[in-house]
């Protein structure tokens, strides 16, 4: 038993660190480290740089142009990137639909789609949730009816992340209304430029527009853009959900945000002393720092077990719950750290477009707190994750 990474893994970490130091533009890292919004171009520019280094899709095997990194390497990469202010990688192409196309797509689909995911040339989004299908995703109603070589798609998706930037969507549609909910679903790849698609951004509580409602009105999707068999889409969707687990806990990002919280708490004053010396605030920070440490080791244990090919248990759900709780706790403490200067709020602050009345670092903290409430809701709510854990342990 030992905590230290192997010499090879440490050398790999150095390699990643050097790459990020050289290639991550300061214009991007400054935004990430100060909590400002990133533009579409920021994301694409980082993806291009990774692609040129051969690291466009960290988990992909070499045959599809990936570096073939194992879960530990992916973890190290994301930790180093996060700490240095690298953008959160947009998962829809590289981590979600890519692996599905590799596992279940045909050769023509693989050749058509995978290279442009890798290069960042095509931006992907996810068409899963609907107004009536959230946690109960299998109850989705968007219909796809076969007409010649096309499907005609009608319906509505929602909570679609960054679809306003997307070139393509992977989408779950109902192709058999008579079958059981899980058995009548197909997995389609839809060109976002297709006639009949309407994208309407949803303004969230922090003023951001990162999710959309999307309407489909007689949208023609070629049958050749269906992944695998008709009515087998649920299988592919479940594969996708189980696929990306190396960084589900978000340890690297949480470490970065904890560092920022402590920086802020050193600069804020209470009773003429740094806030970080206030016993109650210090105890709150210590508590979340300790919880993060426990999560990090739990995450490493999971990676280590994966490396030795043990069957996974409820670990992914544990990591999701604790990771999101900890991230939310850090964002809340950061907001509370600035006291009354958490109150002034302008959306422009997220684009560094506002000189706040208090300290500069206070400008984005409240928006971040508000935005982070999503973490325990998306990707399977934390309550659904607890259902999963209970099912795996109690089994009733």
């Amino acid at each position, binding site marked *: *038993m*030992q*905590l*230290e*990474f*192997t010499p090879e*893994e440490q050398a790999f970490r150095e390699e990643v660190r050097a790459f990020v130091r050289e290639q991550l533009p300061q214009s991007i890292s400054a935004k990430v480290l100060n909590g400002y919004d990133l533009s579409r171009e920021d994301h694409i520019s980082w993806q291009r740089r990774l692609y040129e280094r051969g690291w466009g899709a960290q988990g992909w095997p070499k045959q599809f142009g990936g570096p073939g990194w194992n879960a*530990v390497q992916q973890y190290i990469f994301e930790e180093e990137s996060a700490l240095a202010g690298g953008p959160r990688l947009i998962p829809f192409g590289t981590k979600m639909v890519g692996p599905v196309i590799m596992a279940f797509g045909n050769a023509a689909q693989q050749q058509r789609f995978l290279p442009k995911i890798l290069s960042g040339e095509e931006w992907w989004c996810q068409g899963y949730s609907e107004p009536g299908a959230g946690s109960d995703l299998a109850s989705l109603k968007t219909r796809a009816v076969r007409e010649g070589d096309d499907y005609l798609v009608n319906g509505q998706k929602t909570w679609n992340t960054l679809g306003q930037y997307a070139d393509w969507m992977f989408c779950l549609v109902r192709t058999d209304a008579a079958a059981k909910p899980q058995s009548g679903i197909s997995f389609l790849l839809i060109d976002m430029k297709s006639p009949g698609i309407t994208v309407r951004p949803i303004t969230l509580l922090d003023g951001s527009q990162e999710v959309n409602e999307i309407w489909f009105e007689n949208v023609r999707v070629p049958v050749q853009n269906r992944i695998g068999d008709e009515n087998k889409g649920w299988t592919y969707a479940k594969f996708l959900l189980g696929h990306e687990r190396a960084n589900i806990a978000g340890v690297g990002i949480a470490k970065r945000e904890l560092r920022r919280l*402590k920086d802020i708490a*050193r600069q804020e004053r209470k009773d003429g002393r740094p806030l*970080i*010396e206030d*016993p109650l605030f*210090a*105890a709150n*920070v*210590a*508590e979340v*720092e*300790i*919880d993060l*440490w*426990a*999560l990090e*080791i*739990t995450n*490493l*244990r999971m*990676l*280590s*077990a994966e490396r*030795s090919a043990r069957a996974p248990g*409820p*670990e992914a*759900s*544990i990591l999701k*719950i*604790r990771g999101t709780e900890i991230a939310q706790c850090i964002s809340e403490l950061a907001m509370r750290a600035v006291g009354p200067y958490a109150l002034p709020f302008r959306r422009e602050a997220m684009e560094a477009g506002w000189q706040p009345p208090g300290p500069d670092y206070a400008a984005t903290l409240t928006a971040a707190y508000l935005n982070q409430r999503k973490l325990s809701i998306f990707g399977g709510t934390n*309550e659904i*994750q*607890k*259902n999963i*854990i*209970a*099912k795996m*342990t*109690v*089994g*009733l």
Partner: protein
Amino acid sequence: MNFEFSDEQQQLHDSVDRYLTQQYSFDKFRAIRASDAGWDQGMWRGLAELGVLAVNVPAEQGGLGFGPLETLAMMGSCGRSLVLEPVLSSAVIATATLKPFSADAAAAALLGKLAGGERIAVLAHFERDSRFEPQWVAGRARRSGDDYVLDGHKAVVMHAPAADVLLVSARTAGEPGDAAGVSLFRVPRDAPGVTLDAYPTMDGQRAADVHLRGVKVPAANLLGVEGAALPAIEAGLDLGLAALCAEAVGVMQALVDATVQYVQTRRQFGQPIGQFQALQHRIADMVIQLEQARSMSYLAALRCGDENMMERRKALSAAKAVVGNAARLIGQQAVQLHGGMGMTDELIVSHWFKRLTAADLMFGDRDAHLQRFAALTR
């Protein structure tokens, strides 16, 4: 990075686990708990034969020469079986405290006897006002010719009534709170002037407040250099903290398993109560806490001997805070989910709960370690 036991560690784990599963039933626990001594000589010999008592004794003194990871490997089963014998107090803490003094012939001889189970030693260190602060030693020792004379009051010394030898800390210089000036002495438990106010603790173990009034011991009973014993005491306490974390995780696993089994079989409203989501989510919370605690018990074992005291204390405080929190949550929820049965003395659940409650309180509760961690990391 790996989280596997070596083959040797796994064998130790398996043999201890098998022995305790076969020999240390809940009925046996209850019988031992109800006995006058509160621990069982035959069981102690059995543990000695298994090598449990030799794990932390160097090979030169006839021990196995193992360390924190082997201690980790065996403590979980001790927790599960609610071992009442002084494994933690004597075979872990006192042994690890003595180990730095093995150049001292008498200390080396004692280590050998601890390994074989012929003697039991406990560390008598904390006092009424020290709570969990190892430097807070007020009891005094003064040199008098060829002897030292000890005066002091040691609070809640676990397993003191079972001990042949007390390792007593006393101040030979400085004031409470000073790291320097703390000395350590071998004191026979039956030495004149030593009195024990003995009692059971909440979890059925035995302890005593130890009063020392003009206790005279030969100068040769001083361990190591006068005034410089604190590092050895901390070595003992730190291994003890790691071992207690591992023991607590063993108890937590047992409680989670028992609770899962209970909600699968207990029926109300025509169905197993485990089908109710309110209860399922409590189970999920228990599983989450258990895994965080397990992770931190590994961290504690891996770092409790770290020579960088800053890193060592950070890791141990983080571990104890997480384990303490998990101990409370899992213990309380297990009782809750067992309903009225969880409240009874008849079911082992309440005894596991009490052991976990004690584990949070020993060597610094969650608050104490949060505070220390905060001071080390701001």
